[in-house]
């Protein structure tokens, strides 16, 4: 089975965008692709351990996702790593701005990654942005 590279940049803090990003990352990874997720801007704060902040819905779909027992996006990102060996990195700029360290982030999140490395890896394969 040929594996392809899938690079997913996540910057939105909206539930719908985070959900779609988590779906692409998890399904992409369990299909055998080499998945790298890059978390920056308003997306990163949800990955801080113990964060009680909930992603707000952008529209009706986001409300329904919560009401209808769709899989939680954080759980899907964890499964992308556990079941599909995805790599999830915080943006090194975003961790500096938020003043967080890797240890402050969920256990499935790897070390901070710079944009140069992300873009260099992303050059060969599919790139998705949410």
């Amino acid at each position, binding site marked *: 089975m040929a594996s392809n590279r899938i690079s997913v940049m996540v910057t939105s803090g909206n539930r719908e965008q985070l959900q779609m990003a988590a779906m692409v990352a998890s399904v992409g990874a369990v299909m055998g692709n080499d998945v790298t997720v890059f978390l920056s801007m308003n997306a990163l704060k949800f990955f801080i351990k113990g964060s009680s902040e909930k992603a707000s819905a952008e529209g009706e779909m986001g409300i329904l996702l919560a009401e209808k027992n769709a899989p939680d996006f954080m759980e899907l990102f964890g499964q992308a790593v556990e*079941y599909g060996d995805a790599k999830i990195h915080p943006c090194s700029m975003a961790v500096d701005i938020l003043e967080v360290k890797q240890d402050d982030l969920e256990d499935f999140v790897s070390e901070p990654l710079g944009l140069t490395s992300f873009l260099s890896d992303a050059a060969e394969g599919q790139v998705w942005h949410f």
Partner: protein
Amino acid sequence: MSERKLVDAKNTFCPGPLMELIGQMKMAEIGDELEILSTDQGSANDIPEWINKVGHEMVDTFENEGVWHIVVKKTK
């Protein structure tokens, strides 16, 4: 003797049933059969796609009263 394990993933949405199946597949032995139950039609289409892509064996698939049953044999 290999066994068939039931994975009840009713009342959740894509890709929940697929992820539940994969979690159970990880713990299963080669040769075991798993039967996943899903009320989500998208998953009923996607799970066989994943089985083919990854190379496990599709044993059976059928729908009964709004519940899709997909039976897969772990081959590796």
